[in-house]
């Protein structure tokens, strides 16, 4: 008990903890769907995605993390193969 003060956060310092993050995937009303056959794995959508939600899957194709994807549709616009289509969530 006497050491409990050590557990208190230091004043005005907030440490990154992904468990506390808001689930921004809830915002989504349109859902991007990757056509894995046409996706060439160029990675252009990775950098432009505001949430950095897209990464390679095991076959080096785009794979979207729907916990954080807000459904803006930027990936579908930048895709040179038109492999990402926006559908209903």
């Amino acid at each position, binding site marked *: 008990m006497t050491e409990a003060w050590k557990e208190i956060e230091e004043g005005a310092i907030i440490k990154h903890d992904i468990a*506390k993050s808001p689930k921004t995937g809830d915002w989504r009303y349109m859902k991007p769907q990757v056509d894995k056959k046409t996706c060439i794995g160029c990675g252009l959508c990775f*950098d432009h995605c505001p*949430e950095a*939600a897209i990464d390679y899957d095991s076959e080096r194709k785009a794979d979207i993390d729907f916990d954080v994807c807000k459904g*803006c549709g930027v990936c579908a616009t930048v895709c040179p193969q038109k492999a990402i289509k926006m559908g209903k969530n």
Partner: protein
Amino acid sequence: MNKKLTEKLAPGHSTCAGCGIPAIARTVLGATDDPVIIVNVTGCLEVTSTLYPYSAWKVPYIHSAFENGGATAAGIDGAIKALRKRNKIPKEKRIQVVVFAGDGGTYDIGLQSLSGALERGHDFIYVCYDNEAYMNTGGQRSGATPYGADTETTPAGKQSFGKTEKRKDLMSIVIAHHIKYAAQANVAYLGDLKMKAKKAFALEGPRFLLVLQPCTNLWKYPTSEYVRIGKLATETNFWPLWEYFDGKYKINWATENPKPLEEFLKTQGRFKHLFKPGNSPQIGGASEKVIAEMQKEVEEEWKRLVNMAEV
């Protein structure tokens, strides 16, 4: 989520869907392997990435007030120098101080502290994401708002065609401080932005990046379009990509046949009034005059830039 891209800035921030600001922050920070300290001036990036009790930042981060991004960076630079003298930080270890600020915190409110820090020659990088108005508070005009734009404080209507003043030429103000490196970039060209950030990180002293950031919410266009609209800004010469290094100007992207400015203006709700016939009786009901004036300004600016640049 993408592990490599989220090494410094994690998702879970609350920027509007389709906002390019996190892409700017990730691209700039991805260009260095040195440890970084982020100074973030009040603005969109600050309010969205630090929602109590969550912080999206995985690197040391300090929020300073609107007007003192430059001063905070200067203080951190001073502290690093003092710790080096006392051998608390090894001499060969480079620490990068990076300021992120919006156009309000750079063009207007933060200009004096930025000017001071540039003039004193502190070792820091200043990145301004320019969305051309105070977007975080609902889109009031700023020094960066272009002529003719409809904002909350310059509303277009029967008596007005939007903002009547031209945008401030911030790059010239910054370069006038005799700094080594300054560059104008665009979020739609992330490869170009990364190249510029890499160049900047390799140098010492004050360095400045001005990055165009189309705002989905208050430029009024669909959330999926920031890349297309950003590209149009450069293709119409509204936002040329160029850099200034050691007294020399260099244009990074040019075309022989720039698109007419209208193509860029038509994509956005903030210029919608310019395409309504019979609007703006104040200027004789001719919105075309405003567009012609904007086109003229863009052409003059481009000519000025070409004259300064080395081929």
